[in-house]
């Protein structure tokens, strides 16, 4: 089975974020980047499917030069080759999810894969739509928030997460697209051998085409969230803070 995993590179989860001058995005000068966590689970699922039933795993990402490091890491984990859609981050930021999905869809069409996997959402924008839009653009069936994937004689049988602890199995023919939920598998680390091998694996870099239509939505401004509650911050030594908390638990919260 030929599998493409669409990956996004995002700032590290514990990054200290500050708003850039102009107020349209974060100041990205000193940020370190990593693979979007749900996409890491999508990659893991693809690698396990390949181990079970053979085939090829291709990782695909759009972004500036720094994206190459995330693709290389995926190759070190076991992906066979990478496609990097080279795009300036400012230019990408001006586009919306639909325009970005069109870039990915063009690259995917050229490969004609059996299966496309991606994470259920990104840790930065969190729009959670790229996968579904891709499936629509490619004219293939999809399912979202997937915990398990099983290859059947007629296609796939997947376990989809619903809300409140409910699940559902869904069957579909191939080619298909799935968005993968975090936590379904245990993530692997790249081995030393993997890192060495990655150096000889091919990465195709293709330029991003200009958008064919103007964006439908625009990010006008980013801001720090307003506090929903007036938070009283407690300070001091551990013992002093503990004493203050006990006081609150007793006289304010009434649980002691």
């Amino acid at each position, binding site marked *: 089975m030929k599998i493409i995993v669409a990956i996004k590179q995002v700032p590290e989860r514990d990054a200290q974020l500050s708003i850039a001058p102009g107020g349209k995005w974060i100041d990205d000068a000193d940020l370190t980047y990593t693979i979007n966590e749900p996409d890491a689970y999508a990659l893991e699922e693809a690698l396990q499917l390949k181990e079970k039933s053979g085939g090829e795993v291709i990782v695909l990402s759009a972004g500036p030069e720094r994206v190459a490091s995330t693709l290389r890491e995926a190759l070190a984990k076991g992906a066979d080759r990478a496609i990097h859609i080279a795009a300036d981050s400012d230019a990408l930021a001006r586009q*919306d999810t639909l325009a970005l999905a069109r870039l990915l869809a063009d690259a995917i069409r050229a490969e004609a894969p059996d299966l496309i996997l991606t994470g259920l959402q990104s840790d930065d924008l969190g729009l959670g739509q790229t996968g579904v839009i891709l499936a629509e653009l490619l004219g293939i069936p999809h399912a979202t928030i997937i915990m398990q994937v099983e290859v059947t004689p007629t296609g796939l049988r997947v376990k989809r997460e619903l809300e409140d602890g409910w699940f559902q199995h869904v069957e579909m023919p191939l080619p298909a697209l799935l968005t993968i939920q975090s936590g379904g598998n245990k993530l692997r680390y790249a081995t030393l051998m993997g890192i060495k091998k990655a150096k000889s694996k091919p990465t195709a870099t293709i330029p991003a085409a200009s958008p064919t239509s103007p*964006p439908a939505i625009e990010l006008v401004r980013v801001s720090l*969230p307003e506090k929903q509650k007036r*938070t*009283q911050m407690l300070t001091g030594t551990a013992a002093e803070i503990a004493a203050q*908390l*006990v006081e609150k638990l007793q006289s304010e919260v009434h649980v002691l």
Partner: protein
Amino acid sequence: MSGVLVVVEHRNGNGSGNGNGAIARTSLEALAGGQSLAKQLGAGCSAAIFGQGIAALAGELSGKQLAKVYAVEHPLLQQYTADGYTHALQQLIETVQPAYVLFPHTYQVRDFAPAVATRFQQTLISDVVNFREGPMFVRQLFQGKLNADYRAVGSGPCFVSMQAGSISADALQTSVEPAPVEVFTPTLTHAQIRTTPSAPFREAAHTVDLTAAPVIVSVGRGIREQDNIALAQALADALGAELAASRPICDAGWLPMERQVGSSGQTVSPKLYLAIGISGAIQHLVGMKGSKTVIAINKDENAPIFEVADYGVAADLFEIVPALTKAILAKKT
């Protein structure tokens, strides 16, 4: 194009959409949001409900202050499929021509609404927490660390999904004069439905009912290792509290899934929610922001959990938690 169309979801308590279900609370919230947006635009608000044999539910909706209720009925909509719902809603939008289409931001909506928006060359503004004059839609970035204002600049319609709990369902306006119900029958064929869903199921009965616990001690990524869970357990024991966790802890298998609080776990509103090493991603906050008092301990003073906390401690949990357990035990003896 004019007016607001709200897509309403109904459940049977198990995510299947047959007619015996009830209108989901998040949909009532989206309806309240739709009414408010329509008022701002000086336009009407309508609702659409999908399924088969949904006359009673459509009747229930007609008691709300709405311009019209569309009962989108078809045998192929008896059970939810992305293909069925996408085709049906596309046809309804082409007929009704709304300027705004509002959804509750549920797992089901996430599965099909982006495809509908794509068919109109639009992008859904998803997981919106608020909207202002303009209209300008506010949504969260970076797991709740930042807010972003979005607006529609496309040729329309504008698609928006509302985060659970962002608008109170109590704000929903009812009407003495029932809204007219129009049955809309989309053209659907079996061949258009490419996926075959089976009946929803649960892995195991919820043996831990966190919703009944008056005090909850909850752990997140900040706890770092499975062995450290014992620190939180000791604090929970001292407080007579239930131990809960955010998703990554349950994903790692450090605590069972049934102890998870958040959009994919349980929704709780205890007297006290003590969050240890939890950053406060949106998916977690929706499950606990109804708590009466929230105490948060997290080393990152900018963690979003502090936005919903009454008392905050921006310090090392490995120092604070043992000291707190000790102080509570000392107080009790």
